[in-house]
């Protein structure tokens, strides 16, 4: 009597099968191991793809975003009724720039850092959450606006998303950081002693550069290093990014102070000499 199903004999190969071996019971072990191997390799490739994403794709997306923001803000400034043309007679009273109030996510200023690149220019948006920082430097909500007393605090990515603050460690004491708004230029200078290159030595005691833990929120206080609700003792600018380059373990902080009065765009449309570095 022949058995209905003979497990020890391989079934006849079916056409279009490509000649693959039949799945005998002991082949399941091999299949499992091969499956695990393929899965691990796939996961590895996905991880590599993610690194590529962080390094290149986010840069592409951020560059597009910055172009869009740049168009948006320059259009806004062209149509701004508060920016008056230069008066015929010399202005008697000192130039006071218009107050700025923007919603979260809106661009309101352009950051120029000659030390990082001759034509370095990034649009700053209001807010320092992931969504805003993905587009470029973001302004910590509640901190000072350009030119105001207090601390104009801006966060930016070190690596990826356009890498606006990649070479922030190259900043030296005295380096200008120029903030451009609808009607004015503000020149801030990194604290420290330009002659010796030391970041310490400013009479305020605030260092031009420091590396801190991520929890060190006092760096964005109205007086850097002071209490969060404390008084403002000057017009400061603080930049924050992560440190070391590919890690979020610490923060690299740059402190700068406003150098001179705001420069009216009506009289100096091409920017202050500090823009040349």
């Amino acid at each position, binding site marked *: 009597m022949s058995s209905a199903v003979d497990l020890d004999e391989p079934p006849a190969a079916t056409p279009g099968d490509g000649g693959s071996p039949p799945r005998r019971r002991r082949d399941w072990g091999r299949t499992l191991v091969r499956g695990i191997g393929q899965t691990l390799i796939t996961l590895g490739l996905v991880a590599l793809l*993610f690194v590529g*994403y962080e390094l290149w794709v986010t840069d592409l997306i951020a560059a597009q975003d910055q172009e869009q923001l740049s168009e948006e803000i320059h259009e806004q400034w062209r149509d701004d009724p508060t920016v008056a043309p230069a008066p015929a007679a010399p202005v008697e009273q000192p130039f006071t720039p218009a107050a700025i109030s923007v919603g979260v996510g809106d661009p309101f200023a352009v950051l120029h850092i000659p030390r990082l690149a001759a034509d370095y220019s990034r649009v700053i948006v209001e807010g320092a959450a992931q969504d805003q*920082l993905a587009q470029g430097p973001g302004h910590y909500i509640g901190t000072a606006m350009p030119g105001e007393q207090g601390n104009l605090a801006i966060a930016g990515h070190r690596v990826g998303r356009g890498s606006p*603050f990649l070479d922030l460690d190259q900043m030296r004491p005295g380096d200008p950081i120029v903030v451009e708004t609808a009607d004015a230029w503000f020149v801030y200078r990194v604290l420290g002693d330009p002659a010796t290159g030391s970041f310490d030595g400013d009479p305020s005691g605030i260092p031009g550069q420091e590396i801190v833990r*991520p929890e060190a929120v006092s760096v964005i206080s109205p007086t850097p290093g002071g209490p969060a609700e404390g008084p403002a003792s000057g017009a400061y600018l603080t930049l924050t990014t992560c440190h070391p380059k590919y890690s979020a373990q610490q923060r690299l902080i740059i402190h700068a102070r406003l150098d001179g009065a705001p420069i009216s765009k009506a009289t100096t449309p091409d920017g202050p000499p500090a823009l040349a570095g």
Partner: protein
Amino acid sequence: MYTWIWRHLPGPFPAKALAALVLVAAVSALLLFVVFPQVEPLLPFTDVTVTP
């Protein structure tokens, strides 16, 4: 997994190879432009702000 996919692609070898490349490109694009942007905020190594 990959041999299963390969076996089920239609056509002779060149057509299969092309189809395989298209599949890889499609999956990569899906990952790069859809999955990764969604997953990224959940990962801790992209923080650049100071927070208490």
